[in-house]
């Protein structure tokens, strides 16, 4: 018998106000093609001797993780699963720059230790003294969805009762230039952001779960037929008809080649459904879909969809939300569908 899966708590540090749902009513709109996350004052959360060893990404990951553990009442999650496209890229850059500058003769230990992708998940586990399942997915734009799918399957099958899922990516000025040259970022109409999102998944709602996670589908080059089949399967397994879905949240980012995929698929797959966006608030990054999931979970918990989330002109705030579907793709290769429902929905 499969179990229900709930999102018990979720926290973010991004280009919006950190650790806050302020974006629901007063969103920030960063100017220019490149925006760094707004960091909280970490001195309030970390002792100086702990903070000095941690790069910004690690501080963000650790803080959001600690907060969702505290808020969900789960001090030792059964699994800690992280998605990250770039890992600790800032420390990696510092470490590699120093190696190049010093003729590969000197290695800076702290930056070296923090230059791998799986530093994040392991640091969270060490901090929580958690010896359970620990995994990191680094699959560019599908990193978060891989982590979410892993957690979802383990919870559904009863292998774990709780899973801390994180999605963390920073963007350095140097790496932004590289991605801009490659045509992935820096286009007109959108901006590059940073992601730090942690969420606690559990097989029980506890006190005040944000929403239910009904299903996750991850596909590689599915084509229209593949997407349709995945959608039908998701709907059937969750017992939620597509006509019951209130709106579809998509990963449109203002970049024509990216948005064209949604423009072609959505009218066929979700005819007449209101479309929501989130990257105009949080920006683009490899793990930005985690902020979409966080935003959708928050909307379901608060039972309202702010007007500024609706794609196109003339969005009107809507109250009473039962089911939201997230649809993201990365370079039209990996596509993901995530279905969330209000608790009791």
């Amino acid at each position: 018998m499969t179990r229900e899966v709930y999102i018990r708590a979720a926290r973010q540090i991004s280009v919006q106000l950190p650790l806050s749902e302020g974006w629901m009513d007063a969103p920030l709109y960063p100017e220019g093609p490149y925006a760094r996350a707004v960091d909280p004052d970490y001195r309030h959360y970390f002792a100086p001797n702990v903070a000095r060893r941690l790069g910004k990404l690690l501080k963000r990951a650790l803080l959001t993780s600690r907060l969702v553990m505290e808020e969900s009442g789960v001090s030792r999650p059964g699994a800690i699963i992280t998605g990250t496209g770039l890992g600790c890229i800032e420390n990696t850059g510092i470490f590699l720059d120093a190696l190049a500058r010093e003729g590969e003769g000197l290695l800076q230990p702290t930056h070296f230790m923090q230059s791998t992708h799986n530093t994040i998940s392991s640091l969270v586990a060490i901090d929580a003294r958690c010896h359970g399942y620990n995994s990191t997915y680094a699959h560019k734009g599908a990193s978060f969805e891989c982590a979410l799918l892993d957690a979802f399957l383990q919870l559904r099958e009863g292998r774990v009762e709780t899973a801390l899922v994180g999605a963390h990516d920073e963007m350095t000025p140097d790496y932004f230039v590289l991605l801009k040259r490659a045509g992935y970022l820096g286009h007109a109409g959108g901006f590059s952001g940073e992601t730090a999102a942690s969420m606690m998944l559990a097989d029980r709602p506890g006190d005040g779960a944000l929403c239910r996670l009904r299903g996750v589908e991850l596909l590689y080059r599915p084509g229209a037929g593949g997407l349709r089949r995945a959608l039908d399967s998701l709907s059937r397994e969750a017992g939620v008809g597509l006509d019951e879905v209130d709106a579809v949240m998509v990963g449109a980012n203002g970049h024509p080649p990216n948005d064209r995929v949604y423009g072609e698929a959505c009218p066929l797959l979700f005819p007449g459904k209101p479309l929501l966006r989130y990257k105009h608030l949080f920006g683009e990054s490899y793990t930005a879909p985690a902020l979409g999931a966080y935003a959708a979970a928050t909307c379901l918990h608060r039972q309202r969809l702010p007007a500024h989330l609706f794609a196109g002109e003339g969005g009107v705030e809507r109250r009473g939300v039962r089911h939201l579907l997230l649809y993201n793709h990365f370079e039209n290769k990996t596509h993901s569908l995530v279905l969330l429902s209000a608790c009791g929905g």
Partner: protein
Amino acid sequence: MDELILNLKREIIEVLNLEEVKPEEIEDDAPLFGEGLGLDSIDALELIVLMEKNYGIKLSDPAQGRELFKSIRVMATYIRDNRKK
């Protein structure tokens, strides 16, 4: 010597990311490890890298580091007598 001590304190603050510490708060003769700044073994590695990078002093014997990193003054004295940069 005083200038070298001050520079060394600034370099240690930077390389060990001791954001909250000011140079004048580090006592010249206070122990760097355990008490005082409370540094640990990873910091020792960072200090070894600092010595080589900034002063051209290569430490090959770990036991040497234990003696050398007793305090800022001991470090500065060693640097003054052995620096190659």
